[in-house]
């Protein structure tokens, strides 16, 4: 039985990976949902012989980042009445399809969808900010199934709207659904949308879950409104630690720091908490390693590299020792920006739309080059696929070719 399961699991992984190739960025924060790209040979400068703009197209309001598989990119936007899932040509920016996902969510900090599409095989999973979850056919945008979180789980529209990015694991879709009474998170059959299990009673907290492999077992880590928790693949809680943000807002994803640390962070003067996972008998425990105000992610999460974390402590880009929380360097003037890492660099988008390449080292902040790419407020993190960077705000989507 064990052997059969293993063979089936391997087959599932292979099947799921059949459309996503190395270099793709098929979901929020990239292949590992950790903000890290494996691409190499990227330019470290801008200009005719370095990184240059590939295309620039108008886009409607929204915070969804860009997912890319092959020559197609997927994101979401809105107009004055509806929200949409979009598929664009990843090289030219030409719109290939645009499908309405539900009525627009309007709010003074910015209208439109918050969640990023997840691409898996021939499907695209999207979550509208008012709680419509849908599986779309990748080629056409045709709706394969959909459900309203309010009807399925008793979810109420959160103050800042549904924001979590769906996560695929094998045949299942793992989603923070914000339901009541043991239905805060759910696993669905990705083929049909049928509910497999629900778990947790905490209120929705706007962040996106990650998958972690620890001590030979997979677990899903969620940052909910009052705790950081790890669930096994059947939704059973393995461990949890309290994490109670002010104003009950924790949009930044938890971050796995291999081999055994998890970081959670929130703004509003809360800060970060790092826990160490330990195997205890058949279970897993989490013990606090450090906590403090030195990393207060408002919405964009940190990136962990070589024992250090890099991220936006509100309006200050910081590097900390991941194991101790000790500060290594700080850089102000980039606002509440976002970042990913690739090829030994931090690819940073400032809150005011400046793209900055920074050497990924704990030694010092060393800027390699910068380019003003977007105008106005830019809260959506960059995506990097096949040598091309994708950046957006509420009015424009821009691609920058990073391969020389």
């Amino acid at each position: 039985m064990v052997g059969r399961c293993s063979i089936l699991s391997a087959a599932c992984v292979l099947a799921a990976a059949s459309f996503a190739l190395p270099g793709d960025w098929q979901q929020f924060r990239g292949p590992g949902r950790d903000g890290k790209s494996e691409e190499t040979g990227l330019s470290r400068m801008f200009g005719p012989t370095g990184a240059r703009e590939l295309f620039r197209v108008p886009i409607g309001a929204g915070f969804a980042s860009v997912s890319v598989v092959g020559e197609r990119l997927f994101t979401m936007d809105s107009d004055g009445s509806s929200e949409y899932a979009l598929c664009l040509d990843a090289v030219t920016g030409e719109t290939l399809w645009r499908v309405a996902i539900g009525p627009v969510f309007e709010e003074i900090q910015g209208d439109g969808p918050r969640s990023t599409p997840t691409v898996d095989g021939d499907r695209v999973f999207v979550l509208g900010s008012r709680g419509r979850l849908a599986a779309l056919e990748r080629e056409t945008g045709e709706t394969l199934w959909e459900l309203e979180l309010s009807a399925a789980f008793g979810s109420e529209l959160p103050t800042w709207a549904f924001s979590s990015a769906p996560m695929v694991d094998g045949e299942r879709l793992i989603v923070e659904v914000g339901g009541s009474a043991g239905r805060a998170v759910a696993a669905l059959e990705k083929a049909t949308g049928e509910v497999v299990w629900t778990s947790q009673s905490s209120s929705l907290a706007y962040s996106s879950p990650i998958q972690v492999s620890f001590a030979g077992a997979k677990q899903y880590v969620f940052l909910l409104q009052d705790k950081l928790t790890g669930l096994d693949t059947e939704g059973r809680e393995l461990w949890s630690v309290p994490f109670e943000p002010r104003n009950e807002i924790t949009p930044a994803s938890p971050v796995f720091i291999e081999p055994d640390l998890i970081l959670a962070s929130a703004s509003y003067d809360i800060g970060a908490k790092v826990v160490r996972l330990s195997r205890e008998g058949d279970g897993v425990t989490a013990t606090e390693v450090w906590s403090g105000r030195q990393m207060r992610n408002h919405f964009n999460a940190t990136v962990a590299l070589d024992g250090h974390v890099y991220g936006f402590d509100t309006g200050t880009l910081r590097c900390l020792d991941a194991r101790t929380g000790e500060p290594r360097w700080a850089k102000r003037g980039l606002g509440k920006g976002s970042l990913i890492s690739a090829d030994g660099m931090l690819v940073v988008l400032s809150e005011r739309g400046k793209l900055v390449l920074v050497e990924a080292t704990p030694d010092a902040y060393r800027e390699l080059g910068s380019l003003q790419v977007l105008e106005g407020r830019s809260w959506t993190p960059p995506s990097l696929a096949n040598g091309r960077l994708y950046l957006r705000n509420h009015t424009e989507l821009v691609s920058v070719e990073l391969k020389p």
Partner: protein
Amino acid sequence: MSFRFSVALLLAALGQGAPSEMTTEDILDRHFEALGGRHRLEAIRTLEKAGTYVYNGQEHPLRSFHLVGNKYREEIDGLVIWGASVKEGHSVIRGADGTTYWVVDDTRYGRFREVANARASLTIADADLQGALFDHERKGHVITYDGLGDVEGASAHRLRVTLPSGFELVHFLDETSFLVLKKEVVTKEGARDLEHPRAWFYEDYRAVDGVLFPFWIYVEEPIFSREYVFDSIVANPSLDESIFEAPPDAIKSP
């Protein structure tokens, strides 16, 4: 002990002195010397600044006017407090007349219009053109030396300034340059009396009439931080004092 290490110790001893041996007055003397001298700072009675105010990812043209006696006025174009947009043709105007903080702003969607007394009191204190360290005894400020601290890796003297209001503003003065790198305070605000830390960071000091002023100020708050990026600071312009008085439609605090 190596020769090189011995020389280093000797030079350190002959130089600025061990931090633990410095008194508050020593540090203040070095600070005002670094700024350009107490007499030059005292000679500056008004300031006019122009530049950019950065808030919530948006840049806004900024003009501000300052007069000794904790009087100031700033005009920020297009600013929408709590908002994500720029409102063309509109300016938020706010200031202090020395005892009252006031705001004229019709863009708050009917929300967040009240100004907490703690915020108002701090803003008035921060409107001190010459700074809380200058002439501190006359102002009723009590300053104590808290030893060395750290500002993003820079060693700094910590001077704790207790204002008559009871607020404690900790100033971090760079150990080498004696310029203020950072100032921080914690207040209690809101219905739940939550702790509200604030910090001001100062960079890009430039001389104006022989006195160094920071041309870049970053104010860190739990929710919305802001930056002041100045293009120009003019000393002793002629200002009409009535501009510091609250307009009839202003919200005032306390």
